[in-house]
């Protein structure tokens, strides 16, 4: 079984994030998107259970290689970094087309059975790339999995988001996205970190993928930080905190 996991290096959500020239400022406090750790865990577990290999794939500037190194430490066997200056400012559709072209090229060495992603990336948080990538590749998509089962020919998921708990299945090859409920990502240890240093990372540009026009369809016209909320009234409960809260709600016609 051959699995490709898509990962992304993103600005740390605990850091001061900003936008300049319509693009997110990157490269300062960047980390592996935390939701991709669930994707990696799901992929590595499946490869361990069923036999097979895991290739970590990312698209991003040079620093994005760090996300791949983390993926290799978590158990991916090899990695592909699509790196090209023309991809700065890519939207979800362009990202999906580039990742799709990379998956096809990876499949040149043997068919890819499963493409695994996280539920979203913490930078754009659009949740669009998994479905867009499945569409580009013409694959069935089972998304937002809280539980995953796979026997090597079918992938079955349980989705708990939405109005119901649902069980979906699809024949392989397929695209799978997992939520942060799906598993507890492993933490690399000294041995896996040393082993990761020997694992290969291939770097491809758009020419390697046979892509030329990667103009995004979505443009940011204006971006500005939201003004800070005016300081509120903070009281300490000395026995009447609940009554004062109720009074605040009534005075402000919030009831």
């Amino acid at each position: 079984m051959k699995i490709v996991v898509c990962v992304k290096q993103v600005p740390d959500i605990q850091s001061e994030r900003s936008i300049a020239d319509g693009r997110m400022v990157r490269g300062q406090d960047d980390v592996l998107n935390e939701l991709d750790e669930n994707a990696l865990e799901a992929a590595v577990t499946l490869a361990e259970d069923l036999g097979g290999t895991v290739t970590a794939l990312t698209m991003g500037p040079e620093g994005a290689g760090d996300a791949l190194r983390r993926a290799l430490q978590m158990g991916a066997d090899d990695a592909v970094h699509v790196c090209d200056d023309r991809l700065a400012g890519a939207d979800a559709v362009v990202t999906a087309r580039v990742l799709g072209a990379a998956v096809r090229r990876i499949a040149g060495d043997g068919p890819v059975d499963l493409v695994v992603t996280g539920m979203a990336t913490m930078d754009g948080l659009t949740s669009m790339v998994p479905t867009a990538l499945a569409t580009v590749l013409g694959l069935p998509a089972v998304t937002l999995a809280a539980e995953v089962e796979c026997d090597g020919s079918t992938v079955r998921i349980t989705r708990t988001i939405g109005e119901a708990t649902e069980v979906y299945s699809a024949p392989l090859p397929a695209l799978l996205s997992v939520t942060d409920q799906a598993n507890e990502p492993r933490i690399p240890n000294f041995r896996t970190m040393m082993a990761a240093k020997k694992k290969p990372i291939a770097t491809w540009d758009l020419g390697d993928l046979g892509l030329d026009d990667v103009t995004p369809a979505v443009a940011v016209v204006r971006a500005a930080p939201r003004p800070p909320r005016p300081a509120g009234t903070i009281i300490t409960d000395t026995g009447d905190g609940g009554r004062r809260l109720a009074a605040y709600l009534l005075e402000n016609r919030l009831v």
Partner: protein
Amino acid sequence: MIVQTLVILPGVLTTSHFEVLTAARSLGTVAVVSLGEPDVEVLARFGVDRVHVPDFDGHPLDPAVVADAAAGVIRESRPDAVLLASTFAGKAIAARLAVLFDGGAIVDVTGLRVDGARVIASKSVLAGTWETECEVTRGLPVFAVKPTSFEPVEAPGGAVAVVRVAAELSDAARAVTLEARVPRPESGRPALNEARVVVAGGRGLDGDFSLVEQLADALGGAVGATRVATDEGWIDHSAQIGQTGVTIAPKLYIGAGVSGAVHHTGGMRAAEVIVAINTDSEAPIFELADFGVVGDAAEVLAQAIEALRER
């Protein structure tokens, strides 16, 4: 410019769908793709002039299935823009349509305006700390509208034409099988993403959501929670507010025993009024709060509920 919009809606409509219809009407004309049997009287009240009803032949309405059916209607009717509600399913449908029509999708849209021949969408990003305006510069634009961003306004028009069409599904969409579906039990409360009032509980509740539920019911609101509270199993995962849960923008948010980690605040800081109760006066939630009580959540909630009952 009058924008010809196509709105993707379920058969049974709730507030968030009326909001999308209102948003669409602010751009121009409104046609609908209805995923279930449409209520044409309701659609007429919101100024819809045509409703396309795909026959799914019993297929479960997975996002790929919905997008493929909508794609058939789009090819036929050639709208200028497609709108739908920004839910997890809505975002997936938007993504598939954007690829199929080599256009672009903007999700979590909080405002829309026409500027000459362009449609400009506003949305907040970076956990609600930045405001942006975006546009789709080529192909079909798809806008997923964030619930509670628009005030639903009726605008009765003429008769609604009903057009029944067969849904043409791709092999990839047909390949996904729904094996089981267990609906969530009805709480009788408004949906979390649509509610005008949300009372949320976190670690400081120590496992007991009963007072949060009582206050929510007293205010006619929904119940939400932090990641910790859902992970601990104190309340169903569907109640999770935050970047990986539900993003909300209610008129009133009350956080009880919520500290205000960025994972949670990214999902609620767009609330109009924020009220917080926490024992720790240094908790980051107080930086966002319009009104805060430093104290024990259970005691403050119990007294507030009693005071509201007495009024």
